[in-house]
């Protein structure tokens, strides 16, 4: 009893702290609530989940075995297979999974109030997201680092495998388009932002040459040089935006930026990686980790009050001006990264499993890194909700609803049920060094205003404009890195696919194949980017749900593979650990798809919008539905017709693929549980480990003797 108390006493206290924080969040009836409650509710929940649920999953469900040699140990070649210190691998894995996703989704979902998003981020990561990452990592490790697609093919069957492959490719295209759209929306008409982001290209080239030829492998010194130049570029942007002769030159319309990004994406995919992609990767990783750490410190020092209410009416009536649709299912679609992100399963299978020293470390690396990402999402929601809600809606609502002036925006905001006076809007814009903040959708500018308010208040209210552009630069920089890397990944996938049919195409060094595959991928996301920027109904609110659905589709594939393997391992008793999140994920994704396809509300359903567009074009004038959606001309109607057709067909495709994967897996499950089928697994055979938990050799023997 006494030792039990000693062992669990600290956890009783953690549980109490967590319970009190959650209680305050749920019951508070004041005007505002301090962000500290939210922060500590999250931390206490993570700690308990990591200590108890993750350990249960590790020991009982997966049954990790530290006497078993990992692929890193068995196949150690000092290159891709290599036992890596768990703390170092944790850093690598976190840097790989954390991108712009956990920063954008929570900002958009904040329109429903701070509580729905917060609850989903915390509960979702504990029961679904971190479990997915950890189990995928473990199963891939047991299979010498096979990719998710390969595992789906081997454990479920060729149909499930093919669906997984198509899912990966299509999510990549949508994802890159949405991320590029966020950059365009953040930089349009902003000479400061455009200049400092453009400067990252010469900075990266300089770093690339330095690292390749002058001082190979000196990553730290070149990164210090790069970050210093980056800060200079931000100051330079401030000078440019003040200058009467250069400001105009660096001010771009959205369509000019679209064109620039498409050309840039193509060139970056074709150029050798050491010149542009690799140095940019280092730069954005350091910026990312640094800014996230700064933000955590800033929030912990300031403990700002949250201005957004717990729930807004949009959570229930589905008429939100940021994106349409009710709390269920759209909060769970909008916030993917940070709660449950299928995209992680691509990284959890492939690179990281080849570097793990000990099986039990999947808990720290898989589960732990995902908890960190979730924490980033919590900070994003704090940064968005400490803003005046009026400012939040004036920035994020569909620009067609807001009009062009501070007066019209303030009026629109009051029609949403929030108050803001026009002076506040112009004042906020002036404080961050921008012409206007009205209708700056996409999440990044909102987050940047939130971050700049927190940082500048830590420093006594100075330099807000610098911090705003610092935050914009940090987001744009690593989105562009994702665009580079994602285009490349997609290019390899296409080359691999076509290579099955026609051999020369598979050689990644073959220039024509390289050019054609790059053009296909860039053309794919470039199309959606262009359509999104020119969407008369606002691009981000149309495309973001599609992106969320695609991402959760990938999560469904990963969780289906996990459930199948658990059943094959004879762990039917514990299969609920992945099967319950799968059921939830399928329910959310299919409901969202259903509404996007069949809803008669034209704000939500793609085909309802399409029908209105068809009717307007036939009649030769806009009908009431499109006028209510703020379409302005018959050309708008034509554009709506094209966009909704493409988006609608994609929604159908995604929904059908989820159903195929789950149905194909159910066939396998039925055969295993009731059909008396013998499980066939492709696990690598057991071999004894010779490493201790710190990665040191236990038995001294000459390496050649094995």
């Amino acid at each position, binding site marked *: 009893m006494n030792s039990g108390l000693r062992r669990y006493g600290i956890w009783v206290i953690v549980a109490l702290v967590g319970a009190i924080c959650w209680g305050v969040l749920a019951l508070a009836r004041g005007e505002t609530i301090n962000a500290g409650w939210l922060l500590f509710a999250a931390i206490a929940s993570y700690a308990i989940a990591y200590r108890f649920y993750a350990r249960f999953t590790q020991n009982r469900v997966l049954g990790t075995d530290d006497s078993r040699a990992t692929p890193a140990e068995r196949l150690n070649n000092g290159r891709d297979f290599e036992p890596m210190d768990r703390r170092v691998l944790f850093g690598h894995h976190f840097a*790989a999974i954390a991108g712009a996703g956990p920063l954008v989704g929570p900002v958009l979902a904040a329109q429903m109030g701070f509580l729905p998003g917060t609850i989903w981020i915390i509960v979702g990561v504990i029961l679904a997201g971190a479990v997915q990452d950890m189990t995928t990592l473990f199963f891939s490790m047991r299979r010498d680092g096979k990719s998710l697609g390969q595992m789906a093919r081997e454990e479920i069957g060729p149909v499930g495998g093919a669906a997984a492959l198509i899912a990966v490719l299509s999510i990549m295209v949508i994802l890159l388009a949405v991320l590029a759209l966020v950059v365009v929306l953040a930089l349009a008409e902003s000479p400061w932002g455009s200049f400092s982001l453009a400067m990252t290209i010469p900075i990266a080239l300089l770093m690339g040459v330095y690292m390749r030829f002058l001082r190979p*492998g000196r990553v730290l010194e070149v990164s210090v040089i790069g970050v210093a130049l980056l800060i200079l570029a931000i100051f330079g942007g401030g000078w440019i935006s003040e200058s009467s002769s250069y400001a105009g030159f660096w001010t771009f319309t959205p369509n000019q930026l679209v064109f620039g990004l498409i050309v840039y994406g193509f060139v970056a995919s074709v150029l050798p990686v050491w010149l542009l992609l690799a140095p940019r990767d280092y730069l954005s990783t350091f910026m990312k980790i640094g800014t996230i750490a700064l933000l955590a410190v800033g929030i912990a020092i300031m403990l700002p009050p949250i201005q957004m209410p717990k729930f807004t009416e949009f959570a229930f009536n589905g008429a939100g001006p940021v994106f349409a649709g009710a709390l269920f299912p759209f909060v769970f679609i909008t916030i993917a990264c940070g709660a449950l992100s299928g995209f992680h399963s691509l990284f959890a299978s492939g690179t990281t499993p080849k570097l793990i020293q000990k099986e039990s470390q999947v808990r720290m690396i898989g589960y732990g890194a995902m908890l960190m990402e979730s924490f980033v999402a919590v900070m994003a929601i704090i940064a968005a909700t400490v803003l005046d809600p009026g400012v939040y809606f004036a920035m994020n609502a569909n620009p067609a609803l807001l009009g062009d002036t501070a007066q019209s925006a303030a009026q629109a905001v009051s029609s949403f049920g929030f108050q803001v006076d026009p002076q506040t809007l112009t004042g906020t814009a002036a404080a961050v060094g921008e012409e206007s903040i009205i209708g700056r959708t996409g999440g990044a500018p909102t987050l940047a205003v939130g971050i700049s308010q927190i940082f500048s208040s830590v420093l006594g209210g100075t330099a807000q404009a610098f911090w705003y552009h610092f935050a914009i630069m940090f987001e744009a920089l690593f989105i562009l890195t*994702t665009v580079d890397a994602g285009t490349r990944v997609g290019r390899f996938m296409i080359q691999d696919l076509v290579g099955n049919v026609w051999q020369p195409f598979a050689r990644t060094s073959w220039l024509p194949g390289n050019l054609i595959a790059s053009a296909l991928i860039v053309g794919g996301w470039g199309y959606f980017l262009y359509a999104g920027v020119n969407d008369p109904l606002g691009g981000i609110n149309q495309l973001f749900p599609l992106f969320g659905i695609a991402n959760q589709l990938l999560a469904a594939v990963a969780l289906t593979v996990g459930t199948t393997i658990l059943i094959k391992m004879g762990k039917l008793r514990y299969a609920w650990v992945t099967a319950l999140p799968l059921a939830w994920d399928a329910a959310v994704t299919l409901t969202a798809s259903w509404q996007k396809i069949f809803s008669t509300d034209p704000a939500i359903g793609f085909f309802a919008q399409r029908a209105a567009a068809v009717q307007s074009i036939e009649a030769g004038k806009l009908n009431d539905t499109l006028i209510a959606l703020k379409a302005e001309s018959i050309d708008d109607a034509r554009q709506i017709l094209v966009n909704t057709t493409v988006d609608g067909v994609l929604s159908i495709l995604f929904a059908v693929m989820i159903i195929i994967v789950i149905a194909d897996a159910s066939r396998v499950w039925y055969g295993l549980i009731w059909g008396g089928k013998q499980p066939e697994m492709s696990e690598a055979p057991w071999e004894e480990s010779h490493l201790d938990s710190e990665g040191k050799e236990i038995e001294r023997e000459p390496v050649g003797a094995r």
Partner: protein
Amino acid sequence: MKEHLRAIWEYLKEISGENAYDRYLAVHAATHPGKPAMTRGEFYRWRQDEKYNNPGARCP
């Protein structure tokens, strides 16, 4: 304090790949004794090309 700083420095070197070459030399000496190893420049150029020619994916 000094020890902590040293540990942080070692961690940074490890995580950024600064000392990957030293580790490669150790593995190479153990597995291919007597054969010439890559130079520092060759090793990092090879490593970079390898990494990006077999890309994984990252989270949005």
